[in-house]
Protein backbone atom coordinates (compact mmCIF):
# COMPACT_ATOMS: atom_id res chain seq x y z
CA UNK A 1 0.00 0.00 0.00
CA UNK A 2 1.41 3.36 -1.01
CA UNK A 3 1.56 6.44 1.11
CA UNK A 4 -1.77 6.93 2.83
CA UNK A 5 -3.58 10.21 3.14
CA UNK A 6 -6.40 10.15 0.66
CA UNK A 7 -7.16 6.41 0.81
CA UNK A 8 -7.14 6.61 4.59
CA UNK A 9 -9.42 9.66 4.49
CA UNK A 10 -11.81 7.84 2.18
CA UNK A 11 -11.98 4.83 4.47
CA UNK A 12 -12.65 7.08 7.45
CA UNK A 13 -15.44 8.90 5.75
CA UNK A 14 -17.06 5.65 4.75
CA UNK A 15 -16.56 3.84 8.04
CA UNK A 16 -16.96 6.62 10.60
CA UNK A 17 -20.74 6.36 10.86
CA UNK A 18 -20.66 2.59 11.23
CA UNK A 19 -17.82 2.72 13.74
CA UNK A 20 -19.55 5.31 15.87
CA UNK A 21 -22.91 3.54 15.71
CA UNK A 22 -21.27 0.28 16.71
CA UNK A 23 -19.55 1.87 19.70
CA UNK A 24 -22.61 3.85 20.77
CA UNK A 25 -24.77 0.74 20.71
CA UNK A 26 -22.13 -1.27 22.52
CA UNK A 27 -21.36 1.20 25.29
CA UNK A 28 -24.56 3.25 25.33
CA UNK A 29 -22.46 6.38 25.65
CA UNK A 30 -21.99 8.78 22.73
CA UNK A 31 -19.22 10.77 24.39
CA UNK A 32 -17.14 7.68 24.97
CA UNK A 33 -17.91 6.39 21.49
CA UNK A 34 -16.80 9.66 19.91
CA UNK A 35 -13.65 9.84 21.98
CA UNK A 36 -12.42 6.33 21.26
CA UNK A 37 -13.48 6.48 17.60
CA UNK A 38 -11.24 9.53 17.24
CA UNK A 39 -8.40 7.70 18.96
CA UNK A 40 -8.80 4.69 16.69
CA UNK A 41 -8.74 6.91 13.60
CA UNK A 42 -5.60 8.60 14.91
CA UNK A 43 -3.98 5.20 15.45
CA UNK A 44 -4.90 4.29 11.88
CA UNK A 45 -3.31 7.46 10.53
CA UNK A 46 -0.12 6.52 12.36
CA UNK A 47 -0.12 2.83 11.45
CA UNK A 48 -1.69 2.39 8.02
CA UNK A 49 0.82 4.39 5.99
CA UNK A 50 3.48 1.92 7.16
CA UNK A 51 1.51 -1.32 7.32
CA UNK A 52 -1.02 -0.62 4.58
CA UNK A 53 -4.80 -0.27 4.92
CA UNK A 54 -6.07 -3.51 6.51
CA UNK A 55 -8.32 -5.77 4.50
CA UNK A 56 -11.16 -5.16 6.98
CA UNK A 57 -10.63 -1.53 7.97
CA UNK A 58 -13.81 -1.37 10.03
CA UNK A 59 -12.90 -4.48 12.03
CA UNK A 60 -9.47 -3.00 12.69
CA UNK A 61 -10.95 0.32 13.80
CA UNK A 62 -13.64 -1.35 15.93
CA UNK A 63 -11.12 -3.56 17.74
CA UNK A 64 -8.79 -0.64 18.35
CA UNK A 65 -11.59 1.64 19.54
CA UNK A 66 -13.00 -1.02 21.82
CA UNK A 67 -9.60 -1.59 23.43
CA UNK A 68 -9.25 2.13 23.99
CA UNK A 69 -12.72 2.23 25.53
CA UNK A 70 -11.96 -0.61 27.90
CA UNK A 71 -8.68 1.04 28.94
CA UNK A 72 -10.60 4.19 29.58
CA UNK A 73 -13.23 2.36 31.65
CA UNK A 74 -10.51 0.66 33.72
CA UNK A 75 -8.88 3.99 34.48
CA UNK A 76 -12.12 5.81 35.20
CA UNK A 77 -14.16 4.32 38.03
CA UNK A 78 -16.97 6.86 37.64
CA UNK A 79 -17.41 5.94 34.02
CA UNK A 80 -17.39 2.25 34.88
CA UNK A 81 -20.18 2.78 37.41
CA UNK A 82 -22.15 4.83 34.96
CA UNK A 83 -21.86 2.20 32.26
CA UNK A 84 -22.77 -0.51 34.74
CA UNK A 85 -26.01 1.27 35.54
CA UNK A 86 -26.59 1.50 31.81
CA UNK A 87 -26.14 -2.28 31.66
CA UNK A 88 -23.69 -1.52 28.90
CA UNK A 89 -20.78 -3.56 27.80
CA UNK A 90 -18.44 -3.14 30.76
CA UNK A 91 -18.53 -6.88 31.35
CA UNK A 92 -14.96 -8.12 31.95
CA UNK A 93 -15.66 -11.46 30.31
CA UNK A 94 -16.28 -9.73 27.01
CA UNK A 95 -13.49 -7.22 27.41
CA UNK A 96 -10.61 -9.15 26.00
CA UNK A 97 -12.62 -10.82 23.29
CA UNK A 98 -10.91 -9.93 20.02
CA UNK A 99 -12.69 -9.03 16.84
CA UNK A 100 -11.74 -11.66 14.31
CA UNK A 101 -10.75 -10.44 10.88
CA UNK A 102 -13.90 -11.75 9.26
CA UNK A 103 -16.32 -11.47 12.14
CA UNK A 104 -19.64 -10.17 10.94
CA UNK A 105 -19.75 -6.60 12.07
CA UNK A 106 -23.29 -5.45 12.75
CA UNK A 107 -24.50 -2.25 11.14
CA UNK A 108 -25.99 -0.23 13.99
CA UNK A 109 -26.45 2.99 12.03
CA UNK A 110 -30.20 2.63 11.89
CA UNK A 111 -30.38 2.60 15.68
CA UNK A 112 -28.15 5.65 15.87
CA UNK A 113 -30.19 7.42 13.21
CA UNK A 114 -33.39 6.91 15.17
CA UNK A 115 -31.66 8.32 18.24
CA UNK A 116 -30.38 11.37 16.32
CA UNK A 117 -33.84 12.01 14.86
CA UNK A 118 -35.71 11.50 18.14
CA UNK A 119 -38.74 13.79 18.57
CA UNK A 120 -37.31 14.92 21.93
CA UNK A 121 -34.72 16.88 19.89
CA UNK A 122 -35.56 19.88 17.72
CA UNK A 123 -35.33 19.60 13.95
CA UNK A 124 -32.12 21.61 13.58
CA UNK A 125 -30.43 19.42 16.17
CA UNK A 126 -31.72 16.25 14.52
CA UNK A 127 -30.27 17.40 11.21
CA UNK A 128 -26.93 18.40 12.71
CA UNK A 129 -26.52 15.17 14.68
CA UNK A 130 -27.41 13.04 11.66
CA UNK A 131 -24.81 14.78 9.49
CA UNK A 132 -22.22 14.61 12.26
CA UNK A 133 -22.67 11.03 13.39
CA UNK A 134 -24.17 9.13 10.47
CA UNK A 135 -22.66 11.01 7.53
CA UNK A 136 -19.42 11.68 9.39
CA UNK A 137 -19.17 15.37 8.48
CA UNK A 138 -17.09 17.57 10.75
CA UNK A 139 -18.78 20.24 12.86
CA UNK A 140 -17.10 22.91 10.71
CA UNK A 141 -18.43 21.35 7.51
CA UNK A 142 -21.98 21.18 8.86
CA UNK A 143 -21.77 24.79 10.06
CA UNK A 144 -20.58 25.89 6.62
CA UNK A 145 -23.33 23.92 4.90
CA UNK A 146 -26.05 25.58 6.98
CA UNK A 147 -24.37 28.99 6.91
CA UNK A 148 -24.10 29.28 10.70
CA UNK A 149 -20.96 30.09 12.71
CA UNK A 150 -19.02 26.94 13.73
CA UNK A 151 -19.43 27.84 17.42
CA UNK A 152 -23.21 27.90 17.03
CA UNK A 153 -23.22 24.51 15.37
CA UNK A 154 -20.82 23.09 17.96
CA UNK A 155 -23.10 24.28 20.73
CA UNK A 156 -26.16 22.82 19.03
CA UNK A 157 -24.47 19.44 18.63
CA UNK A 158 -23.19 19.46 22.20
CA UNK A 159 -26.64 20.23 23.57
CA UNK A 160 -28.21 17.54 21.44
CA UNK A 161 -25.66 14.95 22.49
CA UNK A 162 -26.13 15.99 26.11
CA UNK A 163 -29.86 15.50 25.87
CA UNK A 164 -29.42 12.05 24.32
CA UNK A 165 -27.15 11.15 27.25
CA UNK A 166 -29.00 12.81 30.13
CA UNK A 167 -32.52 11.81 29.22
CA UNK A 168 -31.29 8.48 27.90
CA UNK A 169 -32.70 8.48 24.41
CA UNK A 170 -32.29 4.83 23.41
CA UNK A 171 -30.19 3.62 20.46
CA UNK A 172 -32.95 1.42 19.16
CA UNK A 173 -35.29 1.00 16.24
CA UNK A 174 -38.74 1.83 17.66
CA UNK A 175 -41.37 -0.88 18.01
CA UNK A 176 -44.22 -1.30 15.51
CA UNK A 177 -46.54 1.11 17.36
CA UNK A 178 -44.12 4.03 17.00
CA UNK A 179 -42.20 3.04 13.88
CA UNK A 180 -44.50 4.80 11.42
CA UNK A 181 -44.26 8.23 13.00
CA UNK A 182 -40.60 7.89 14.02
CA UNK A 183 -39.53 6.85 10.53
CA UNK A 184 -41.34 9.91 9.17
CA UNK A 185 -39.03 12.09 11.26
CA UNK A 186 -35.92 10.32 9.95
CA UNK A 187 -37.09 10.69 6.34
CA UNK A 188 -38.00 14.32 6.93
CA UNK A 189 -34.48 15.04 8.19
CA UNK A 190 -32.88 13.34 5.19
CA UNK A 191 -35.13 15.22 2.76
CA UNK A 192 -34.46 18.50 4.55
CA UNK A 193 -30.73 17.96 4.06
CA UNK A 194 -31.43 17.29 0.38
CA UNK A 195 -33.59 20.37 -0.22
CA UNK A 196 -31.18 22.56 1.71
CA UNK A 197 -28.43 21.49 -0.66
CA UNK A 198 -30.61 21.46 -3.77
CA UNK A 199 -31.96 24.98 -3.30
CA UNK A 200 -28.37 26.17 -3.15
CA UNK A 201 -27.12 24.49 -6.31
CA UNK A 202 -27.46 27.85 -8.07
CA UNK A 203 -25.02 29.40 -5.64
CA UNK A 204 -21.38 29.72 -6.54
CA UNK A 205 -20.96 28.17 -3.13
CA UNK A 206 -20.41 24.59 -4.23
CA UNK A 207 -19.91 23.29 -0.71
CA UNK A 208 -23.63 23.25 -0.14
CA UNK A 209 -24.09 20.93 -3.11
CA UNK A 210 -22.40 18.30 -0.97
CA UNK A 211 -25.56 18.21 1.12
CA UNK A 212 -27.40 16.72 -1.85
CA UNK A 213 -24.83 13.92 -2.07
CA UNK A 214 -24.92 13.41 1.70
CA UNK A 215 -28.72 13.13 1.69
CA UNK A 216 -28.60 10.54 -1.09
CA UNK A 217 -25.89 8.66 0.76
CA UNK A 218 -28.03 8.67 3.93
CA UNK A 219 -31.05 7.44 1.99
CA UNK A 220 -28.92 4.66 0.48
CA UNK A 221 -27.86 3.58 3.96
CA UNK A 222 -31.51 3.57 5.08
CA UNK A 223 -32.54 1.66 1.97
CA UNK A 224 -29.85 -0.97 2.58
CA UNK A 225 -30.99 -1.37 6.19
CA UNK A 226 -34.74 -1.24 5.48
CA UNK A 227 -34.99 -2.68 1.95
CA UNK A 228 -38.68 -3.54 2.24
CA UNK A 229 -39.80 -0.13 3.49
CA UNK A 230 -41.61 1.62 0.61
CA UNK A 231 -41.27 5.12 2.07
CA UNK A 232 -37.50 4.78 2.19
CA UNK A 233 -37.44 3.41 -1.35
CA UNK A 234 -39.70 6.24 -2.50
CA UNK A 235 -37.57 8.92 -0.88
CA UNK A 236 -34.36 7.57 -2.40
CA UNK A 237 -36.06 7.38 -5.81
CA UNK A 238 -37.38 10.93 -5.51
CA UNK A 239 -33.97 12.34 -4.66
CA UNK A 240 -32.21 10.46 -7.48
CA UNK A 241 -34.82 11.54 -10.03
CA UNK A 242 -34.58 15.15 -8.90
CA UNK A 243 -30.81 15.30 -8.70
CA UNK A 244 -30.50 13.66 -12.13
CA UNK A 245 -31.42 17.09 -13.57
CA UNK A 246 -28.62 18.87 -11.75
CA UNK A 247 -26.32 19.27 -14.83
CA UNK A 248 -29.04 21.17 -16.71
CA UNK A 249 -30.55 23.26 -13.90
CA UNK A 250 -28.21 26.23 -14.25
CA UNK A 251 -26.74 27.62 -17.48
CA UNK A 252 -23.10 28.61 -18.09
CA UNK A 253 -23.80 32.09 -16.72
CA UNK A 254 -25.21 30.73 -13.45
CA UNK A 255 -28.81 31.50 -14.40
CA UNK A 256 -31.50 28.97 -13.47
CA UNK A 257 -33.14 27.11 -16.34
CA UNK A 258 -36.81 26.13 -16.00
CA UNK A 259 -37.77 22.47 -16.33
CA UNK A 260 -39.42 23.33 -19.63
CA UNK A 261 -36.23 24.80 -21.13
CA UNK A 262 -33.64 22.41 -19.72
CA UNK A 263 -31.41 20.47 -22.12
CA UNK A 264 -32.71 17.02 -21.27
CA UNK A 265 -29.75 15.41 -22.97
CA UNK A 266 -27.66 16.61 -20.04
CA UNK A 267 -29.76 14.81 -17.47
CA UNK A 268 -28.04 11.86 -15.79
CA UNK A 269 -29.61 8.81 -17.42
CA UNK A 270 -28.17 6.23 -15.03
CA UNK A 271 -29.66 8.10 -12.06
CA UNK A 272 -32.99 8.29 -13.89
CA UNK A 273 -32.90 4.54 -14.58
CA UNK A 274 -32.13 3.71 -10.97
CA UNK A 275 -34.75 6.18 -9.69
CA UNK A 276 -37.42 4.83 -12.02
CA UNK A 277 -36.66 1.24 -11.00
CA UNK A 278 -36.92 2.16 -7.32
CA UNK A 279 -40.16 4.07 -7.95
CA UNK A 280 -41.76 0.99 -9.50
CA UNK A 281 -40.59 -1.05 -6.54
CA UNK A 282 -42.00 1.49 -4.03
CA UNK A 283 -45.36 1.76 -5.82
CA UNK A 284 -45.95 -1.99 -5.53
CA UNK A 285 -46.98 -1.36 -1.93
CA UNK A 286 -50.51 -0.24 -1.22
CA UNK A 287 -51.65 2.24 -0.18
CA UNK A 288 -49.03 4.48 -1.80
CA UNK A 289 -47.12 6.94 0.37
CA UNK A 290 -46.37 10.56 -0.42
CA UNK A 291 -42.67 9.88 -1.16
CA UNK A 292 -43.48 7.24 -3.77
CA UNK A 293 -46.10 9.45 -5.41
CA UNK A 294 -43.64 12.36 -5.61
CA UNK A 295 -41.07 9.97 -7.07
CA UNK A 296 -43.60 8.83 -9.67
CA UNK A 297 -44.22 12.46 -10.69
CA UNK A 298 -40.47 13.10 -10.95
CA UNK A 299 -40.10 9.92 -13.05
CA UNK A 300 -42.77 11.10 -15.52
CA UNK A 301 -40.88 14.37 -15.99
CA UNK A 302 -37.51 12.65 -16.30
CA UNK A 303 -38.69 10.13 -18.88
CA UNK A 304 -40.49 12.67 -21.08
CA UNK A 305 -38.58 13.90 -24.15
CA UNK A 306 -39.86 17.46 -23.59
CA UNK A 307 -42.22 19.45 -21.36
CA UNK A 308 -44.89 19.36 -24.10
CA UNK A 309 -44.64 15.60 -24.47
CA UNK A 310 -44.94 14.95 -20.75
CA UNK A 311 -47.90 12.83 -19.69
CA UNK A 312 -49.59 15.75 -17.92
CA UNK A 313 -52.82 13.86 -17.43
CA UNK A 314 -50.95 11.29 -15.37
CA UNK A 315 -48.94 13.99 -13.58
CA UNK A 316 -52.15 15.77 -12.65
CA UNK A 317 -53.73 12.55 -11.34
CA UNK A 318 -50.67 11.90 -9.22
CA UNK A 319 -50.89 15.43 -7.80
CA UNK A 320 -54.54 14.76 -6.95
CA UNK A 321 -53.38 11.67 -5.12
CA UNK A 322 -50.55 13.54 -3.41
CA UNK A 323 -52.94 16.30 -2.34
CA UNK A 324 -55.22 13.68 -0.79
CA UNK A 325 -52.24 12.33 1.19
CA UNK A 326 -50.66 15.69 2.11
CA UNK A 327 -53.04 18.61 1.53
CA UNK A 328 -50.46 21.41 1.77
CA UNK A 329 -50.47 24.73 -0.12
CA UNK A 330 -47.23 23.76 -1.90
CA UNK A 331 -48.80 20.57 -3.26
CA UNK A 332 -51.86 22.60 -4.30
CA UNK A 333 -49.54 24.99 -6.17
CA UNK A 334 -47.80 22.18 -8.04
CA UNK A 335 -51.16 20.64 -8.82
CA UNK A 336 -52.33 23.96 -10.30
CA UNK A 337 -49.22 24.06 -12.49
CA UNK A 338 -49.93 20.51 -13.70
CA UNK A 339 -53.52 21.58 -14.48
CA UNK A 340 -52.24 24.53 -16.53
CA UNK A 341 -50.33 22.05 -18.71
CA UNK A 342 -53.07 19.47 -18.83
CA UNK A 343 -56.21 21.60 -19.25
CA UNK A 344 -54.67 24.86 -20.42
CA UNK A 345 -53.29 28.10 -18.93
CA UNK A 346 -56.70 29.59 -18.01
CA UNK A 347 -57.70 26.54 -15.94
CA UNK A 348 -54.27 26.61 -14.28
CA UNK A 349 -54.60 30.33 -13.55
CA UNK A 350 -58.02 29.81 -11.96
CA UNK A 351 -56.52 27.26 -9.61
CA UNK A 352 -53.57 29.56 -8.88
CA UNK A 353 -55.83 32.52 -8.09
CA UNK A 354 -57.81 30.32 -5.71
CA UNK A 355 -54.58 30.02 -3.67
CA UNK A 356 -54.07 33.80 -3.43
CA UNK A 357 -55.10 33.80 0.23
CA UNK A 358 -52.30 31.42 1.25
CA UNK A 359 -49.66 33.69 2.83
CA UNK A 360 -47.16 30.83 2.82
CA UNK A 361 -47.37 30.80 -0.98
CA UNK A 362 -47.67 34.49 -1.80
CA UNK A 363 -44.57 35.30 0.23
CA UNK A 364 -42.49 32.96 -1.96
CA UNK A 365 -41.51 33.34 -5.57
CA UNK A 366 -42.89 30.04 -6.90
CA UNK A 367 -46.55 31.08 -6.86
CA UNK A 368 -45.82 34.41 -8.57
CA UNK A 369 -43.61 32.70 -11.18
CA UNK A 370 -46.36 30.16 -11.93
CA UNK A 371 -48.86 33.01 -12.46
CA UNK A 372 -46.35 34.78 -14.70
CA UNK A 373 -46.01 31.64 -16.79
CA UNK A 374 -49.78 31.22 -17.13
CA UNK A 375 -50.28 34.90 -18.08
CA UNK A 376 -47.51 34.64 -20.66
CA UNK A 377 -49.13 31.61 -22.27
CA UNK A 378 -52.43 33.51 -22.38
CA UNK A 379 -50.70 36.38 -24.19
CA UNK A 380 -51.30 38.75 -21.25
CA UNK A 381 -47.77 40.13 -21.29
CA UNK A 382 -48.17 43.09 -18.93
CA UNK A 383 -49.63 40.82 -16.24
CA UNK A 384 -46.88 38.26 -16.88
CA UNK A 385 -44.18 40.91 -16.52
CA UNK A 386 -45.66 42.13 -13.23
CA UNK A 387 -45.94 38.61 -11.80
CA UNK A 388 -42.36 37.72 -12.83
CA UNK A 389 -41.12 41.02 -11.40
CA UNK A 390 -42.75 40.23 -8.05
CA UNK A 391 -41.29 36.70 -8.16
CA UNK A 392 -37.79 38.06 -8.81
CA UNK A 393 -38.09 40.32 -5.77
CA UNK A 394 -38.95 37.34 -3.57
CA UNK A 395 -36.41 34.84 -4.95
CA UNK A 396 -33.39 34.02 -2.82
CA UNK A 397 -30.63 32.64 -5.01
CA UNK A 398 -28.78 34.63 -7.71
CA UNK A 399 -29.61 31.90 -10.26
CA UNK A 400 -33.36 32.26 -9.70
CA UNK A 401 -33.28 36.06 -9.47
CA UNK A 402 -31.42 36.11 -12.80
CA UNK A 403 -33.94 33.83 -14.48
CA UNK A 404 -37.04 35.61 -13.16
CA UNK A 405 -35.71 39.12 -13.92
CA UNK A 406 -34.97 38.05 -17.49
CA UNK A 407 -38.54 36.80 -17.85
CA UNK A 408 -39.94 40.04 -16.44
CA UNK A 409 -37.81 42.03 -18.92
CA UNK A 410 -38.92 39.88 -21.82
CA UNK A 411 -42.64 40.44 -21.26
CA UNK A 412 -42.26 44.09 -20.25
CA UNK A 413 -40.81 44.88 -23.69
CA UNK A 414 -43.66 45.65 -26.11
CA UNK A 415 -43.89 43.40 -29.15
Amino acid at each position, binding site marked *: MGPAGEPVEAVFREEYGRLLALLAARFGDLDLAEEVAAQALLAAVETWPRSGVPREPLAWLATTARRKALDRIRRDATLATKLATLHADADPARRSEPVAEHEHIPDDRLQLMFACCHP*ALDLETQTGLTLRYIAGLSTAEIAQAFLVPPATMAQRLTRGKRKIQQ*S*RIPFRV*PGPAELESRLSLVLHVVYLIFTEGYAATGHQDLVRCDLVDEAIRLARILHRLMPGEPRVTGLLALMLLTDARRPARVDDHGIAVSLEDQDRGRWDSSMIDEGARLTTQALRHHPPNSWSVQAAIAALHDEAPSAQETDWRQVRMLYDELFALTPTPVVALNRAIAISWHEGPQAGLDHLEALASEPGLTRQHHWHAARGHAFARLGRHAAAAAAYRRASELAQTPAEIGYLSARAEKYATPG
Partner: protein
Amino acid sequence: MKYMLLIMGFREGEGMPPPPSSGAPSAEEFMHYQQELGQAGVLVDSGLLQSFEDATQVQVNDAGERLVTNGPFAESREYLGGYQIIDVPDLDAALDWAARCPGAKYGRVEVRPLVEF
Protein backbone atom coordinates in the same frame (compact mmCIF):
# COMPACT_ATOMS: atom_id res chain seq x y z
CA MET B 1 -33.31 5.47 35.09
CA LYS B 2 -35.77 7.59 37.04
CA TYR B 3 -38.04 10.11 35.37
CA MET B 4 -40.54 12.48 36.90
CA LEU B 5 -43.77 12.91 34.99
CA LEU B 6 -45.05 16.38 35.83
CA ILE B 7 -48.76 16.65 35.21
CA MET B 8 -49.32 20.20 34.01
CA GLY B 9 -52.69 21.90 33.86
CA PHE B 10 -53.59 25.12 32.07
CA ARG B 11 -55.14 28.05 33.84
CA GLU B 12 -58.39 28.88 32.15
CA GLY B 13 -58.86 32.05 30.10
CA GLU B 14 -56.10 34.52 29.28
CA GLY B 15 -55.97 33.33 25.69
CA MET B 16 -54.54 29.97 26.69
CA PRO B 17 -54.33 27.30 24.01
CA PRO B 18 -57.11 24.79 24.54
CA PRO B 19 -56.03 21.45 26.00
CA PRO B 20 -56.40 18.36 23.78
CA SER B 21 -59.66 17.47 25.53
CA SER B 22 -61.91 19.69 27.57
CA GLY B 23 -62.79 18.92 31.15
CA ALA B 24 -60.59 17.35 33.75
CA PRO B 25 -59.48 13.76 34.33
CA SER B 26 -61.65 11.89 36.77
CA ALA B 27 -60.32 10.41 39.96
CA GLU B 28 -61.13 6.97 38.54
CA GLU B 29 -58.89 7.54 35.53
CA PHE B 30 -56.00 8.46 37.77
CA MET B 31 -56.63 5.52 40.10
CA HIS B 32 -56.60 3.18 37.16
CA TYR B 33 -53.37 4.66 35.78
CA GLN B 34 -51.79 4.48 39.21
CA GLN B 35 -52.71 0.79 39.42
CA GLU B 36 -51.18 0.09 36.03
CA LEU B 37 -47.93 1.74 37.05
CA GLY B 38 -47.91 -0.30 40.24
CA GLN B 39 -48.61 -3.58 38.47
CA ALA B 40 -45.84 -2.91 35.95
CA GLY B 41 -43.44 -2.41 38.84
CA VAL B 42 -42.19 0.94 37.61
CA LEU B 43 -43.78 3.31 40.13
CA VAL B 44 -41.40 4.93 42.62
CA ASP B 45 -43.57 7.69 44.01
CA SER B 46 -46.54 9.80 43.08
CA GLY B 47 -48.75 12.57 44.35
CA LEU B 48 -51.69 14.69 43.35
CA LEU B 49 -51.72 18.32 44.45
CA GLN B 50 -54.59 20.38 45.80
CA SER B 51 -55.74 23.29 43.65
CA PHE B 52 -53.12 25.91 42.78
CA GLU B 53 -55.40 28.42 44.48
CA ASP B 54 -54.37 26.86 47.78
CA ALA B 55 -50.68 27.50 47.09
CA THR B 56 -48.49 29.68 49.33
CA GLN B 57 -45.19 31.17 48.22
CA VAL B 58 -42.15 31.46 50.49
CA GLN B 59 -38.96 33.40 49.81
CA VAL B 60 -36.08 34.22 52.14
CA ASN B 61 -34.01 37.36 51.57
CA ASP B 62 -30.34 38.05 52.36
CA ALA B 63 -31.24 39.10 55.88
CA GLY B 64 -32.91 35.76 56.46
CA GLU B 65 -36.37 37.26 56.56
CA ARG B 66 -39.29 35.31 55.25
CA LEU B 67 -41.63 36.66 52.64
CA VAL B 68 -44.82 34.67 52.54
CA THR B 69 -47.44 35.39 49.88
CA ASN B 70 -50.77 33.85 49.07
CA GLY B 71 -51.54 31.97 45.89
CA PRO B 72 -49.57 30.66 42.92
CA PHE B 73 -46.85 32.66 41.18
CA ALA B 74 -48.93 35.32 39.47
CA GLU B 75 -47.49 35.08 35.98
CA SER B 76 -47.48 31.34 35.54
CA ARG B 77 -50.03 30.21 33.00
CA GLU B 78 -49.64 26.58 33.83
CA TYR B 79 -49.69 24.85 37.15
CA LEU B 80 -48.41 21.56 38.45
CA GLY B 81 -51.29 19.27 39.28
CA GLY B 82 -49.39 16.19 40.35
CA TYR B 83 -46.49 13.95 39.54
CA GLN B 84 -45.30 10.40 39.19
CA ILE B 85 -41.75 9.21 39.55
CA ILE B 86 -41.12 6.09 37.49
CA ASP B 87 -38.09 3.89 37.03
CA VAL B 88 -37.80 2.64 33.44
CA PRO B 89 -34.94 1.72 31.08
CA ASP B 90 -34.99 4.76 28.77
CA LEU B 91 -36.79 7.85 27.50
CA ASP B 92 -38.98 5.93 25.07
CA ALA B 93 -40.36 3.83 27.91
CA ALA B 94 -40.94 6.99 29.96
CA LEU B 95 -42.73 8.64 27.01
CA ASP B 96 -44.95 5.57 26.61
CA TRP B 97 -46.05 5.87 30.23
CA ALA B 98 -46.48 9.65 29.96
CA ALA B 99 -48.73 9.16 26.92
CA ARG B 100 -50.99 6.89 28.98
CA CYS B 101 -51.26 9.38 31.84
CA PRO B 102 -54.76 10.94 32.02
CA GLY B 103 -53.07 14.33 32.42
CA ALA B 104 -51.76 14.11 28.84
CA LYS B 105 -55.31 14.26 27.52
CA TYR B 106 -56.44 17.30 29.49
CA GLY B 107 -53.22 19.26 29.77
CA ARG B 108 -49.70 18.05 29.15
CA VAL B 109 -47.17 15.85 30.85
CA GLU B 110 -43.59 17.03 31.12
CA VAL B 111 -41.03 14.24 31.31
CA ARG B 112 -37.86 15.09 33.22
CA PRO B 113 -34.99 12.72 33.95
CA LEU B 114 -33.83 12.80 37.56
CA VAL B 115 -30.17 13.59 38.25
CA GLU B 116 -28.36 10.43 39.24
CA PHE B 117 -25.80 10.61 42.03
